[in-house]
């Protein structure tokens, strides 16, 4: 009995020694599904400015969520950073994030880009828009996402796979606007208009449009920016759909990459401070420009290259709706035969 007790003390003492080594300096731990080269410059800048070290680990959003969940109360994570509102919504849904009461964040991030309960905040905006081959299509022929389901685009549309969360969120938002029945009709129309099987990524879809395999596709703008930087002579142009509508489907569909504070953070104040800093003008440019995205803070101008694509009206539905309806969207796309 005595010996068992001694062993216990010895063991816990040893564990304590090992563990306390890691927990001393001021630092924040970030779990990030946004990849390393997009976040490291940012964290380096933060450390330089504040002296607070930022430790991070990257992974795909699904496993990262599973990890956060499994670690539960003892997770080392302070901040959870990911792409797509669907994933943020899911993290909130699983009770892995905690609400943040911050005037700075409320002021910096517009209402439709953060969780209604302030559990997470969008930090950069990703617009999913129309890219077309300007040798084959006039801008005047294009109007809305919904219009791409019409018969005049038969055999002229290319799409990325429905497995990608960007398309799932887009369809989820359309369910919110039109209801399931009408959305399913639209998606079926898209599928009927496909020139070729869906592509694994946005780049391939744009390359196909440029090569004339099809005329028009839907992509996130930063892919367009990256591709045009590499191959400026491609006959591709950007079009902002749904601009002249007055109803709730007005505006280009936007999604966010964003972050929330881990529910069981041990450094809540530090985590909030980092989150606030990320929404500030200094960080916002770094955050968005490094990947040619749009800053979430409306006071911050986008990168010069991004600005050349022109201004556009956002769809103002709260991006959290995309998360809520994602499951329905995935099932709808399965029913419509959108692979």
């Amino acid at each position, binding site marked *: 009995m005595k010996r068992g007790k001694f062993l*216990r003390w010895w063991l816990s003492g040893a564990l304590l020694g090992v563990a306390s080594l890691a*927990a001393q300096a001021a630092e924040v731990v970030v779990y990030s599904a946004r990849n390393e*080269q997009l976040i490291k410059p940012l964290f380096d800048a933060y450390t330089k400015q504040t002296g607070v070290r930022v430790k991070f680990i990257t992974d795909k959003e699904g496993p990262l969520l599973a*990890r956060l969940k499994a670690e539960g109360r*003892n997770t080392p994570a302070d901040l959870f950073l990911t792409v797509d509102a669907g994933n943020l919504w899911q993290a909130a849904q699983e009770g892995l994030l905690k609400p943040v009461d911050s005037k700075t964040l409320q002021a910096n991030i517009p209402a439709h880009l953060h969780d209604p309960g302030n559990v997470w905040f969008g930090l950069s905006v990703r617009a999913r828009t129309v890219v077309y081959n300007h040798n084959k299509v006039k801008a005047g022929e294009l109007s809305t996402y919904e219009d791409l389901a019409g018969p005049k685009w038969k055999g002229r549309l290319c799409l990325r796979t429905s497995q990608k969360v960007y398309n799932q969120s887009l369809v989820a938002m359309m369910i919110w606007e039109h209801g399931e029945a009408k959305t399913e009709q639209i998606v079926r129309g898209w599928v009927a208009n496909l020139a070729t099987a869906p592509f694994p990524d946005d780049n*391939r879809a744009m390359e*196909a449009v440029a090569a004339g*395999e099809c005329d028009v596709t839907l992509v996130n703008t930063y892919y367009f920016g990256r591709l045009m930087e590499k191959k400026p002579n491609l006959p591709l142009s950007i079009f902002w759909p749904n601009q002249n509508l007055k109803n709730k489907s007005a505006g280009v569909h936007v999604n966010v990459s964003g972050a929330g504070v881990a529910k069981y953070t041990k450094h809540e104040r530090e985590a909030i401070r980092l989150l606030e800093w990320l929404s500030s003008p200094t960080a916002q440019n770094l955050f968005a420009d490094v990947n040619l995205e749009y800053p979430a803070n409306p006071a911050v101008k986008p990168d010069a290259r991004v600005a050349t694509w022109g201004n556009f009206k956002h769809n103002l539905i709260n991006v959290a709706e995309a998360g809520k309806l994602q*499951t329905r969207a995935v099932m709808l796309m399965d029913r419509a035969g959108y692979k």
Partner: protein
Amino acid sequence: MTPAVGCGEERTASAARHRSTRFVPRHILRLCFFSAPRITAWAIATLTLIPVLVVASALLDPDQEIWAHLWRYTLPELLVNTVWLALGVGLGVSLLGITLAWLTAACEFPGRRFFTWALLLPLALPAYVTAFVWLGLLDFTGSLPTWLREAWGIQHLPPIRSRGGVILVLALALYPYVYLTARSAFQGQGRRLMEAAQSLGLSPVRGFFRVALPMARPGIVAGLSLALMETLADFGTVSVFNYNTFTTAIYKAWFSLFSLPAASQLASILIFFVLVLVLLEQVSRQNKRYAHSARGGGGSTRIHLAGWRGWLVASFAGLVFLLAFAVPFTQLLIWAWYAAGTDLDPRYFAFIGHSLLLSGLGALLVATLAVALGYAQRLQPTPGMVFTARLATIGYALPGAVLAVGFFIPVAWADNLIIDQVRAWTGREVGQILGGTLAVMLLAYCARFLAVGFSSVEAGLGRITRSLDEAAEVLGVTGLKRLRRVHLPMLRVPLLAALALTFVDIMKELPITLMTRPFGWDTLATRIFEMTSEGEWERAALPAVAIAIVGLLPIFFLIRDPDAKAC
């Protein structure tokens, strides 16, 4: 024989005796249940079973709505797709692997020595990277179809993004598994076997089909089952082709429909199928023995393929090498050259170091466990033991991310237990103890890659005749001593194969590495992930090329060493 020998030895003392289990007194039977081989096997199997059971436990809480949806809209398609993929890749890797193995092991043709090791090189490229390169070259927008359209007016080519395309690319990426195991089986047969066949009037071709091929079955099956398990578990390659399989459906159910139960249901079906297949194969070759005298190997009785036949064979091998390795690797080199300007920095030393360390330690651990499991099965070749060994190697058929999460959950659970206990006793907060340690990473690799090491070791052990075990026993050499002095020296070639295969596989592994690595512990594979996660495939070429080059090392050793004597 002394009555004091352990039941394991007693059971294997002669092949005939182990079938007479029912005549063994009951108390010895009970002893056997707790015997060292059995405990070893179960301990190893536990490593894989824990993550599998963690995943399967979600079955207890079925998600009716999602399941009904999957059943109606996606299961029929993905069943057909998965079966076609498995059949196609199985056929493809068998044809390529066996043919090339036989040609390089038993024939002489121009360039044979080069092809002997060069044909293994595709192993060093992650299959999904090869797939992406081929898609870039052969899709409508690719260089070849564009050239054909513009220069020749050829409009309609068979689409690469199709069932045939994905089968072709996977077969080219995975045939080296069969090539490697089949080749070492053919080599182990030595020349006596074929001489005997020829003295009985069989032509070389018929000798191949009647004698060499059937005798090589365990080796071929070992490689084939690895290739098939990898095919079933593959997510990266089929995603590039947007080809829906069981594995893509598992990912979708889990990470898009947020339904762990549905994912678990699908994964359980997948595992069930794999187990049934594996056991069927096992049953079908029961009571057959493949051991033969190890003497008479080597020698220069290769069949000389002179003149045009030699060149025909050489061009076939050359074509496979070109398609499976040279072309994709060249494209990667070109991309890497451009990416190196911005991305190559001193951190690459750390990435390479981490990759080497993890792969090296992981391969050693996997090989050790594989030998332990193989020897345990040899000591007690009971159906129960065979089943345990199959269970232990099932991790390879499970999609990587599923296994990674299944492995992480119990680790986190144990960590939480420790942290809570420390808090309760001392009032202090501590960080994770197990999570983010190398030990956990290595164990997770074992759970995933044991099949890779084991298949090679098992086939190797099968080729050692049991009379050697008995001879050793008569001389008083038993147990671990016998393993060390008799079996291990004879297992050199299969062990090297196991080490090399596991090494390159861990080098390419992604989900487990991502999930369990310590902070800041990036490897070459995680670099690929960082680039491809936002679609920057060209930049991913740099770490991919680095993996290929580092992964070449063991392949080079592997082939040079055994061949030094065989050539």
